[in-house]
Structures are given as C-alpha cells and as structure tokens.
C-alpha cells in the first residue's frame, strides 16, 4: 500500500522538476547582440542583456538582437534594419542566418521588429505584433531595460510554439496548467471525503407513485417575440497605428516585420 503512494509522490515530483526551466551554463565569449548607439543602457545593463540574449538565443538557435539609434537618415526604419542585416550579416547558425532584430529610433519614437529565417517562420507578423504591443508601454515609460528583457523572453517563449498556433493560448500557460491540475485534485479529494460517510441514494422518483401522478393540465401560450441586434466587432489589427507584414532585403533575404511608435 505505502509503496504505491510513494510511487505517485515520485511521479508528481518528477513532473514538477521536469518543467522547471533548465539553466544553461553560459561560457564566456558571448557574441555582441546589443548595439546601443542611443546610449539607453548603462554598461552593466548592456552586459547583462547581452548575456541574456546569448543564453536564450542559443535555446532557439536564433540571434536576438537589439539596435538603438538616435535617428536614421533618409530611409525608413524598416529599410535601415534590412540594410543592417545585409551589411552586418548576423545569424546564429551562419552569416545571414536565423535572427530576430528589435530596432529603436529615439527621434521618431519608432519601434520595429524583424525576423529572419527560423525567426521569420516562428515569429510571423502576428507574433511580432504581440511582442511589440507587450514592450511598447515600458518603452513609453523610458524603462528600456525592462522592455528589452521582455522582448528577449517573449520572443524566446513564442519560438517554443509551432507556427500558426496561438502562443498565448491559456492552455499553454504553465500557471494555468498547474492551477487546473491542483483544482482537479482538490475537487476529487473533496468528493471522496464527502462521499466517505455515505451519500443519499434516493432521488425524486424513489417514493413517487407514477400510476397516479401526472400532468393534469398544461398551457404554453405564446405572447411575443423580441429581437435585439449587436454590431459584430471586426478585428482591426493591433498596436498604436503600426503596420506589420514582411519584405525582402536588398540582399535578397526574406523576413517578417512589425513596426509602430512608442
């Protein structure tokens, strides 16, 4: 008997351990992924974020890059980011490889995201839009470090889901899963405890005399019909007047993108 319960315990603990994020020990020699030309971060913050981008990027085989500039001359932020990709040739797996780029332009309050190769597939315009709307409030507040952390973590998390799934589906949420599992357990225990003392096994039919009972008279009189109408909300895109989609760089690299203002 005891052994069986012990087994359940072990199984439960194993499941819990399994789900804890596995820490990946980071060696030195991180590559530079943060280019903070607008000086939004202190050097400690920059190092911290760079280490974080390297660590999370390795798990998704993608370089999570952050570019900040004061202004871009004569080109759109999209064009500017595409040119950066062509010239700098970033990529986790190879030059011009898997890369996600967040570009911040301070003068024009531009926030722009692009995904290349694996990141194009896993961070489609829809997911980039979601990331953008998640980090925009922090950017507006001037809390750049928090915004950048959120960008790295969210991009990392979203890339764990197959394309064309909703990564924010509540079923995928670990806290939802833990909460639901605990609730099921608690309800089951409650029912077991409640029923342990015996339960009522008579119902409304047990003592009814069907032969003499019944409906003697009934009326269902129609009075009127009322109709209400409601306009159906059509989905009109998200973000603060931003646009999303994709494109191809002058060097011929296809990507997804999302841009807006903060």
């Amino acid at each position: 008997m005891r052994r069986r319960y012990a087994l359940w315990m072990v199984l439960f603990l194993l499941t819990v351990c399994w789900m804890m994020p596995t820490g990946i020990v980071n060696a030195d020699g991180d590559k530079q992924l943060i280019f903070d030309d607008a000086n939004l971060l202190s050097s400690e913050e920059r190092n911290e974020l760079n280490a974080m981008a390297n660590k999370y990027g390795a798990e998704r085989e993608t370089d999570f890059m952050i570019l900040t500039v004061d202004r871009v001359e004569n080109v759109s932020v999209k064009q500017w980011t595409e040119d950066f990709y062509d010239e700098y040739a970033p990529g986790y797996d190879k030059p011009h490889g898997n890369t996600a780029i967040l570009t911040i332009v301070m003068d024009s309050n531009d926030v722009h995201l692009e995904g290349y190769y694996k990141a194009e597939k896993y961070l489609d315009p829809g997911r980039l839009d979601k990331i953008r709307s998640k980090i925009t409030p922090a950017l507006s507040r001037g809390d750049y470090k928090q915004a950048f952390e959120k960008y790295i973590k969210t991009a990392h998390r979203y890339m764990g889901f197959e394309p064309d799934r909703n990564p924010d589906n509540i079923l995928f949420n670990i806290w939802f899963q833990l909460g639901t599992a605990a609730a099921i357990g608690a309800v089951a225990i409650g029912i077991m405890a409640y029923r342990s003392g015996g339960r009522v096994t008579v119902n409304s039919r047990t003592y009814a005399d069907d032969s003499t009972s019944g409906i003697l008279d009934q009326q269902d009189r129609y009075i009127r019909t009322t109709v209400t109408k409601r306009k159906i909300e059509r989905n009109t895109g998200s973000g603060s007047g931003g646009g999303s989609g994709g494109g191809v760089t002058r060097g011929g690299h296809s990507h997804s993108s999302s841009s807006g203002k903060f």
Partner: protein
Amino acid sequence: MPVIEYKCPNCGSSMVFDGDTGKLTCPSCGRTDNIEEIPDPLKQQVFIEDEVKEYHCTSCGAVLVTEPETSATTCSFCGSAVVLSDRLSGELAPAMVIPFSITKEEAIQAFKKWCRNGLLTPSDFMTADRIKGITGMYVPFWLYDLHNRVEVHGHGTKVSTYTRGDYEYTETQHFDIYRKIRLNYVKVPIDASEKMNDEVMDKLEPFPYQQLKDFKTPYLAGYIAEKYSYNDEQLYPRAKDKIQSFIDSYISSAVSGYTTVNFTHKQIDTTLKQADYVLLPVWMVHYDYNKMEHTFAMNGQTGKVVGKPPISKAKVAAWFAGISGVSLLSLKLISWTMGGGFL
C-alpha cells in the same frame, strides 16, 4: 405481566429471530418456528392503563434496566430476549416491520469490507479489528403517503441567435406557462427516534418495502427495539419538507424546452393520506479508533453503511499528488498535441 419472552417448547431456552432464515430460532437446540404461524402473545393481552415502572425478566426475575424508549432488549443478567409489550400496543403498536435479513456475522463482514474500500481511511482503521460493539436495532419510522396538487404559473423564453451581415441578432420568444400536476408520494420514511441522527437515517434509505411484514413481536426477539419519540403529526412538517425538492424537480421536468423559466406563482396543496408506524432494521456499529468512538449505521436489509470514518492526511496528500500529477501530465500532453511544446 407486560414482558414477553419466547421460551423454546423443547428445551426452555430463550428463542431469537434469525435474519438468515426469517424464523424464530432456538440457539440451544436449533428448533425453528415460523413466525407467521405462531399466535402473537401481544394480541391476547389486556393492559391496565397504569404506567409500568419496573419490568422483570421472566427467566431470572432480575429487574430489566431499560431506557424509556426501549421496547425490546435482552436481559443484562441472563441474556434472555425480552419484549416489553405495553410499549408496543395501543397507540404504540407498529403497523409493519421490515425484519433483519443481515445477521450479526454478516454485518461485521460487510462493515469490514466497507472499511477496506475507504479511499481516504487510514490503513490501520481499515483492518476493522476494533469493533467495540454491534447492536441490531429496530428504529421507529413513520411512512407517509402524501398527495399533492400542484399549480404553477410562469414565464418562459426561447432564445435563438443568428447573424445577418455585420449584425448579430438575438431573438427571444416569450411564453406564458401553466401546469396543473397531481403528484403522489407513498411511504416516505421519516425516523421517529429522538436519538437517531436524522441525516444518517436519511442516508440509510432506501429500505426494500417488498420486505414489509405485518408486525409481530417475535421479529424483535434478540434485538433492541425502540418506540417512537415523535408522533406522525409532529413529524409531518419534516415529511413535507423532504418531498419539497422532489416536487420542485418534477415541476422543472414538466416545463422542458425553454431557455429560461421563471415561476411567478407556485401553489402546492399537500394532503396527508396515511401515516404508518413501522420498525426498520439498523445495525449500529461502535468502533474505537485513536481513543475516539466512531458510530456507524448499517441498513439491516441492504447492508449500506453510513457514518464519518476518520480521514488519513497521508492518503489525502497521496491522492491529491496522484490526481493532480496525472491531470498535469494530461494537460501537458494536450498542449503538446496542440503544438504548444511539452515544457
């Protein structure tokens, strides 16, 4: 003498009712008598209207120590089964009885089996080796026949939705509802003993009414029996209360097909057709665990056990971990098949 005892015509021992055979049985020589055939001494007796203060065992002459409700018991000195007939006659005469069909040994076995099946019961409780006492008791019940005339008026709606272009339309049809229902309930049992916990007695139901027999005192031989503490009038409100939920569920089943139903007027006229005084068989099991006495009741016909067993914290924890763990694993699998990744 208001004390009845069944002496074996063969050997003179005290005979008792045997639930297995349904006959009056002599434990010494094994003689059995068919209860339907022997004359009930209760019917031949004439009582003086005096409150009897003391009862004496007809076998040994000792004073029978009884509670004021007791109508059948065993002599604490010689063990003879005795029936106090003045507490079973006149107003106190039961109309019917359901005799025990589960014997003491079967009751103990059934109780042990029930303990073993307890999912949250501590393991050392499950062995059920500390039964302190088990008593077969005929508990007084009133069986009510209640006839009801129900009239309800209400307002019902049927709702449907559809879309046309950019608009979602909700169409609600309104109805006036009227129902006139005859609803008769027979033999609704209400326990009439002050001692017995009403909730526990309710859970012991249902009693198999096909086993109801015309009352005869030999059925009580060897068991404890009690007379009612409350009469049928006093318990009538409880009976009405008990069928209230039955009536409500019948009414709602009579107005199906609506999205919502609101009753504006509900009239229930209940008339009491009959109330029969019956004795129903219950085994009371007293059990010692952790210096606490737990009491369980068992239906003397069906073997159904009612009562709060102790709950083991370790088992609660184990079950919780097991069920939650499996649920979590299933949720993980679902999210994985939906493309959400396993971690």
